[in-house]
């Protein structure tokens, strides 16, 4: 258990990094010193180490790595956020139905969740992408469609306990329709673990996107993403360390930040972990 101030420091650090990443991604065209696709194939333009002109050096085709990283951040972050939004929507819907109605609905949905758990998710994603063809949209949707089962169980557990609470019984006595009970009474009280889980999932989704792009199944070259910058760089690992170092650090920092914020939120929101003052 960590102290309150340490938790706050972690959250602030995480939010700071995420904010910097997000801002530079959003304003990439303004911040980027070069066009990320502009090549310089002259021998002196290629594989230049980091310098004041090229902060992160240039790659094997003479493109500015810093600019490519900024544009890559757009992909990584948007994949992270959109995939998680999809997964949260599905998780809340199925988990809510399951926990609220119980019985057969619950049994059916929970068996479906177990089936989803049986597949190694990453290979499932790879298989689907192979069939549908690699594109950013496909990557987002597929990550979203495969990452909801954990969240679904979480929401179900919350609903199971909340539906027995007296304020829900009272709403039933007063003839409030189920839909309203679910969305106005139960869901707002069930959101704390969802926030935590969603934040952690963003980090995980970014990792999956990077891995897919690294394998050539995500964002297609020449469009930059952190994953495919890494791939391009791995052939030059011996003498151009900057090609793999910077995207690696960016992925690490971003995922770490989301995890710090997620864990911090968990400690703040979960009364069982909260220290008495």
């Amino acid at each position, binding site marked *: 258990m960590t102290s309150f101030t340490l938790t706050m420091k972690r959250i602030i650090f995480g939010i700071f990094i995420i904010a910097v990443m997000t801002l530079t991604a959003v304003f990439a065209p303004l911040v980027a010193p070069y066009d990320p696709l502009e090549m310089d194939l002259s021998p002196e333009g290629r594989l230049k180490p980091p310098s004041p002109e090229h902060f992160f050096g240039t790659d094997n085709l003479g493109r500015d790595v810093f600019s490519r990283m900024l544009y890559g951040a757009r992909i990584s972050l948007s994949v992270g956020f959109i995939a998680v939004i999809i997964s949260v929507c599905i998780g809340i819907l199925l988990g809510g139905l399951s926990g609220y109605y119980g019985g057969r609905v619950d049994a059916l949905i929970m068996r479906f969740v177990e089936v989803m758990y049986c597949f190694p998710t990453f290979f499932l994603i790879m298989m689907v992408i192979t069939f549908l063809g690699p594109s950013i949209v496909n990557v987002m949707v597929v990550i979203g469609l495969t990452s909801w089962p954990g969240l679904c169980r979480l929401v179900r557990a919350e609903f199971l306990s909340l539906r027995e*609470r*007296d*304020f829900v*019984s*009272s709403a*039933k*006595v*007063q003839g*409030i329709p189920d839909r309203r009970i679910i969305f*106005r009474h139960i869901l707002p009280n069930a959101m704390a673990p969802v926030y935590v889980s969603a934040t952690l999932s963003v980090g995980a989704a970014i990792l999956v996107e990077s891995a897919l792009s690294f394998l050539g199944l995500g964002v297609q070259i020449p469009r930059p993403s952190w994953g495919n910058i890494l791939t391009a760089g791995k052939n030059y690992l011996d003498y151009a360390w900057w090609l793999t170092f910077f995207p690696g650090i960016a992925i690490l920092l971003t995922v770490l930040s989301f995890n710090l914020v997620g864990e911090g939120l968990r400690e703040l929101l979960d009364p069982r972990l909260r220290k008495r003052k």
Partner: protein
Amino acid sequence: MMIEVTDLKKYFYKRKGFFSPSSDPVKAVDGVSFSVEKGSTFGLVGESGCGKTTVARILSGILEKDAGRFSISGKRDMVFQDPFGSLNPRMHIYGILSESLKVSKVSPAEARARCVEALELVNLDPAGVMDKYPHQFSGGERQRIAIARALVNRPEILILDEPVSSLDVSIQAGILNLLKDLQEEKSLTYLFISHDLRVVEFMSDTVGVMKNGKIVECASAKEIYSSPKHPYTRILLEAVPSF
């Protein structure tokens, strides 16, 4: 009769495991019959686990009955035992009070007027209450809000499930008197559930004593307290501390 209950039954089945046959059911309510006249209070007493709350939950529509019949002639609403659990912590008081009105398409102006009226009935200042959240109130105030919520729909019957058991003794009397005044003013019919014999004696016209899902004795409050017939009633009465 406002409430008529005949041979009401509710069994809970506990599943032991996937392959083993289900065990004997817990007979929470096992053939309960009683009736309540308009404007009167029927007190249901018994130790915890005797099935009195289950009766309340069936009559209020939260639980389904397994067998028997009951009829309720009039609008009913319910007040719960724990005022900390019965108000949604994320809604402000006006939202809590007006929700059922909103759902039944009462106009916003009318809904507001009805909420003000209900809060005045429970002796709370409407202006100082409406925009606040449940956690800003004490237990007694919350229970008043819960009663106001039940009154907003202008019910004829109130099901009161241990409405004072979780409150300080000093506050209990205030709530009980409030309930009595409301009953007189609005000629409400009460089903009053409690484990506290003194509270039931104060509130009820007729008393039913419940044990293991059955009503073992049912008579007017005076008779029960002056000449209890059933041995269990006597045990309960002897257990009441006297001053």
